[in-house]
């Protein structure tokens, strides 16, 4: 499979990249790791005439602390996320999630920016970023703006990014020390997208939930933030009855497609099962 012809650009700064995207118009696409875009180009489902490779933009790389946040450069690869000591210590759900994405080769090249900005409901990081209340830095011709992950996803492959804008970084508020976390993903095999997956970040005070945030992957046209389910659990001891109620609330906001991963009703139920498991795992990891 050979993609259609295109001109290749390799800018070395965000300004240059955004300038190229602006001047080359609708037929130009930015490429990060390319592990979504290149397969699409090989199938001729995408035929950009200009490809703007972000690989040489040094400003898009790296993981750093900024006050109470951690800022992850958009071109940071899944492999780099897995090996970041800072993230392992402060936001370990990112490592847990990265290890469930694709396979080792893809993780060396696939980037967190591409994962969140592509708008593919099958991608794992968007729901995790919604769970963490991350903020995306987007840069276009008219400068930088910040978009909450929870408001970023509009539909399948349709996001709040304007034409000519790129996500340059992801700003994540560091969850409280001692928080519990888990990303539970049901998949048919290594490398598969989720049949359903759930991300949980919670804090405990004594035996009660002090805060709880839940994200769901691949059970709707967009990743989901299960706000109501999180509210139901807050203040509870994660007793079976309350968990059941929260799971029902989470299942109620799903609308998965029936596909090779199973019928819609099954995938909704699996979202509930993943959430139940993620809650138990997060609780067991939380300090009180």
């Amino acid at each position: 499979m050979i993609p259609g012809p295109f001109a290749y650009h390799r800018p070395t700064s965000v300004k240059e990249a955004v300038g190229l995207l602006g001047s080359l118009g609708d037929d130009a696409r930015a490429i990060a790791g390319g592990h979504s875009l290149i397969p699409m180009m090989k199938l001729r489902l995408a035929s950009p005439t200009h490809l703007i490779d972000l690989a040489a933009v040094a400003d898009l790389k790296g993981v750093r602390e900024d006050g109470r946040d951690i800022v992850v450069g958009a071109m940071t690869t899944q492999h780099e996320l897995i090996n970041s000591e800072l993230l392992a210590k402060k936001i370990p759900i990112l490592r847990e999630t990265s290890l469930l994405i694709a396979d080792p080769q893809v993780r060396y090249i696939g980037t967190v920016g591409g994962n969140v900005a592509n708008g593919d409901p099958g991608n794992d990081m968007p729901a995790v970023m919604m769970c963490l209340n991350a903020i995306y830095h987007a840069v276009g011709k008219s400068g930088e703006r910040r978009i909450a992950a929870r408001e970023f996803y509009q539909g399948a492959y349709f996001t709040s990014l304007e034409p000519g804008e790129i996500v340059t970084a992801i700003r994540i508020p560091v969850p409280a020390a001692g928080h519990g976390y888990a990303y539970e993903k049901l998949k048919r095999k290594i490398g598969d997208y989720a049949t359903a997956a759930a991300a949980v970040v919670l804090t405990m005070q004594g035996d009660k939930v002090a805060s709880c945030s839940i994200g769901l992957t691949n059970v709707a046209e967009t990743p989901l933030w299960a706000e109501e389910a999180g509210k139901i659990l807050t203040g509870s001891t994660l007793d079976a009855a309350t968990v059941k109620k929260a799971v029902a609330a989470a299942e109620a906001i799903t609308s998965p497609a029936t596909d090779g991963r199973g019928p819609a009703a099954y995938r909704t139920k699996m979202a509930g099962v993943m959430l139940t498991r993620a809650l138990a795992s997060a609780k067991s990891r939380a300090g009180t």
Partner: protein
Amino acid sequence: MAKSQISLTVNGKKVEELVEPRTLLIHFLREQLNLTGPHIGCDTSHCGACTVDLDGKSVKSCTMFAVQANGADIRTIEGMANADGTLHALQEGFREMHGLQCGFCTPGMILRAYRLLQENSNPTEEEIRFGISGNLCRCTGYQNIVKAIQYAAAKLGGVPLQEAAE
């Protein structure tokens, strides 16, 4: 579309070539450099038969353009043997432990295992299986591939594996 000049190092040799931007790295390696060790299996970044080592990463060369590899240092199966022509410990391991049957996945398996051992010189069986989870084999059931990698890890670590091939 105008061709681009790229220069890179492949198996220790400097290479300067003209490529169309849309040329995939696997096609560049196989058709322009005549390195037919990396194979095209699925052509959709699932099977890992096209895996090469690029700047310290295992990469599926069917899912990267050759222009993106400009400046890179690449190793393929053709560059695995030792300078004196003897087999690399991984190649020897695959031979000794019967780590292949048809051999189609072997170049990708060996290049992936090479990087795995660079990062973790003494992996557990589970780490090996997770480490090669991006490479599919339709013959062996993986058992002897795992043993081949264990053989190589032991040999490179200076403690030859006791267990003979079954």
